[in-house]
């Protein structure tokens, strides 16, 4: 460039002023995101505890926490429960049910659509403590609404079927997001494309396969990424089962809480948090790969 002044950026903003604009945001990100993440990695390498000697004077124990976690049955069972939780409540439950709702409601007249959307949305916007109380009241062994409806007095849903209970709970809780996202995505499918398929004699399944899904694939991927990550890290169900009974609904976020805060082993908890972070990153990168692959196919 002819104006070889290194202090002036193309936008005409001096480098110093540009840095000035960026700094507050960078400081916030640094203090609240980068530092805690690094601190977690450091803690994961120590035997730091909530109370006692190791709280006052933690020692670096190297990879001991990680090897312990990977060899621990409770960690592995928790990981397996988390996989069930994510697949069951997010991928199958929320995504499929959300899409089904969006697809069914797409051409409905105003009131039906608005009322259904309103109810589904309500489950999403209620505070988690309120929602947890509602579900405890619903599933209670003695006075529970569900037992009253099903005429199954004395069934202890949360004790006998803790995983199924929190999976159904999370489907109920989170479907609104998928429904709204797919609802918006379906607006992008031109009616004439669906009608062309109908005129060719395509069934609903064929219309979905040939017209709708290719059109909203990006939305589906984004939705799956977001709800998988959210569900993977979700802590709301803790207020219903607290991971019990006997750890049978102890998904990873609950496990970390139980180990680090209830059990007081902050260092061990931090190590597991770091493993969870790695799993989240794997999710995100896999999604980005798929999305990039898709772009290359669409724009040859």
């Amino acid at each position: 460039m002819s104006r070889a002044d290194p202090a002036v950026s193309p936008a005409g903003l001096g480098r110093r002023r540009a840095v000035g604009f960026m700094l507050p945001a960078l400081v916030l990100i640094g203090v609240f995101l980068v530092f805690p993440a690094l601190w977690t990695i450091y803690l994961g390498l120590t035997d730091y505890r909530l109370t006692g000697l190791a709280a006052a004077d933690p020692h670096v124990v190297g990879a001991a926490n990680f090897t312990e976690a990977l060899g621990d049955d409770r960690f592995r069972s928790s990981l397996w429960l988390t996989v069930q939780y994510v697949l069951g409540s997010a991928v199958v439950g929320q995504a499929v049910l959300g899409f089904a709702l969006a697809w069914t409601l797409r051409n409905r007249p105003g009131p039906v659509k608005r009322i259904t959307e309103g109810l589904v949305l309500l489950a999403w916007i209620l505070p988690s403590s309120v929602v947890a109380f509602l579900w405890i009241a619903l599933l209670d062994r003695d006075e529970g609404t569900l037992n009253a409806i099903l005429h199954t007095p004395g069934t202890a849903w949360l004790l006998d079927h803790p995983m199924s209970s929190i999976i159904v709970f999370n489907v109920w809780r989170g479907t609104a997001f998928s429904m709204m996202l797919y609802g918006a995505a379906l607006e992008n499918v031109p009616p004439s494309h669906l009608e062309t398929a109908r005129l060719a004699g395509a069934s609903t399944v064929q219309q979905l396969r040939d017209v709708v899904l290719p059109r909203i694939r990006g939305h589906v991927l984004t939705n799956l990424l977001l709800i998988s990550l959210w569900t993977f890290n979700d802590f709301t169900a803790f207020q219903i089962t607290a991971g019990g009974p006997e750890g049978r609904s102890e998904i990873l976020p609950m496990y970390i809480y139980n180990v680090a805060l209830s059990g007081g082993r902050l260092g061990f908890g931090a190590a597991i948090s770091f493993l969870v972070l790695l799993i989240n990153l794997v999710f995100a990168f896999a999604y980005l790969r798929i999305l990039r692959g898709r772009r290359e196919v669409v724009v040859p």
Partner: protein
Amino acid sequence: MISLRGLTKEFPGGVRAVDALDLDIGDGEFFALLGPSGCGKTTLLRTIAGLETPTSGTVAIGGADVTRLPPGRRDVAMVFQDYALFPHMDVTANIAYPLRIRKVPRARREEKAAETAARLSLTELLARRPGQLSGGQQQRVALARAIACHPKVFLFDEPLSNLDARLRLEARTFLKRLQRELAVTTVFVTHDQGEALALADRIAVMSAGRITQLGTPAEVFRRPATTFVAGFIGSTPMNLLPGTAEGGRLHVAGAVLPLPSEVPDGPVVYGLRPEYADLSPSPPPFGDGDAFSGKVAVVENLGTAHLVTLECGDHLVQAVAPEGEEPALGALAWVVPRPGRALIYRDDALLTAA
């Protein structure tokens, strides 16, 4: 053959898009539904396709009542205004799509797609995706998709309106030839009267959900049944002037004109196409009364001719002047109707005999 009997489509909210309509369309006919937007022509087409369910009445195709059949079982193919090509499929897959739904084996349907594409000069483009095609090519792919499955009826919704003006004329000629060759019953919707006149064997002019006039392009152009049709058909708007019939003479916009004998005395509407009037810079020899006289208010260049607007008292009268003979703005001029070309309406019905 398509037969519609008492066909009514009422939308929620009480809008009657199609109102108790009867219509027969013959085998192999190229049929136009013409009208301004909101007249119900697209709803009628979609009802024939099965995309809308009629409130009452029946639709029969080829003698069979299809009123309750879903669109996929009516053996019709529709080309939409936006062509509705699937962006993620190449041209072959798009053309072969209806065959794929009918479970035609892959080899057979690709052969069929290639054959149809060759007929529409699309062979070079078979491996491309719709996003890489021009508007005209996309339209031909949409046509090919309709043709490849050999339907009983073609339905076209504004087939030419997404093309630019020059391409539209080419596509029009192409479409007419193609329809002749295939000889498949074709119904198309258009708001462009020129397109309807040029393409169709017969035209139904629609307004407010009803057919106002049904006839060949020549009939509809020469003898519009109502002033609405008269005003709608023709590339330049017809002069429609209020007048009075009195003792065999017609008093209209300051002129006194001869009147066909069958018109009784009373108020009438006088219709004259600007193309059927001659413009003269001097009064016609047989007296001032046989022509409209006025000052030239507007001159519009139509290319090979000029559309001239005269101010005749309170009324505006338009006539077409040949190239090079256009009058100067503000000059005095006379519009002489050609004999036998004027149309007389009373109570919105045509009085003039053929």
